[in-house]
């Protein structure tokens, strides 16, 4: 039972353009959502998070949008840079110390 789904295995974007990575979840009890970035031979690195009481959180070039009614969140990267090329994982949890559930990841390629 995949509670967090990233339906696009890969995405290719031109440098300077916007990258949009999508994520859907099924468990309505999730109230905290995170994005992690992973380079080869490294562990995932925290990128940005959002609580369910918000619908948008911005940090520099990265913005996460949350649509609770659709159980959907997205990560926007503007402008995209070649160094952003990595695997991006969407993750969700229920505050109170519950386990974090990860999606399968989307591999982003940013072409120079």
């Amino acid at each position, binding site marked *: 039972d995949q509670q967090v789904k990233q339906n696009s295995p890969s995405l290719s974007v031109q440098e300077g353009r916007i990258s949009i990575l999508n994520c859907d979840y099924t468990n309505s009890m999730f109230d905290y959502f995170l994005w*992690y970035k992973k380079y080869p*031979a490294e562990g995932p690195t*925290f990128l940005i998070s959002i609580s369910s009481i918000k619908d948008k959180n911005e940090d520099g070039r990265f913005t996460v949008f949350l649509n609770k009614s659709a159980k959907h969140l997205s990560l926007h990267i503007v402008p995209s840079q070649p160094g952003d090329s990595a695997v991006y994982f969407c993750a969700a*949890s229920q*505050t109170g*110390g519950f*386990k974090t*559930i*990860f999606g*399968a990841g989307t591999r982003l390629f940013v072409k120079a």
Partner: protein
Amino acid sequence: DAGVTQSPTHLIKTRGQQVTLRCSPKSGHDTVSWYQQALGQGPQFIFQYYEEEERQRGNFPDRFSGHQFPNYSSELNVNALLLGDSALYLCASSKGLAGDYEQYFGPGTRLTVT
């Protein structure tokens, strides 16, 4: 300030053997979670340790067990290894119960079972 460290980096085991993986959390962190990442998949939650106790467990058999020491470091033990246990094992630490905070991951231990 050292981040999360894991040892060993790689290891190869035979079916039926037992393995122990080790993790030292980031300085100041008291919670350790373990994940299994199979090829092409996201990290799958195994269990979480807080105050030396297993606080949460994912859908993994009892062959997977762990321990947290007073200095917050942790071990993951897997008994009776199966071919399907071949994966990258990630350790993550956080200050406070994971689920409320972002986690910091180590580089992982690549386990190959032959």
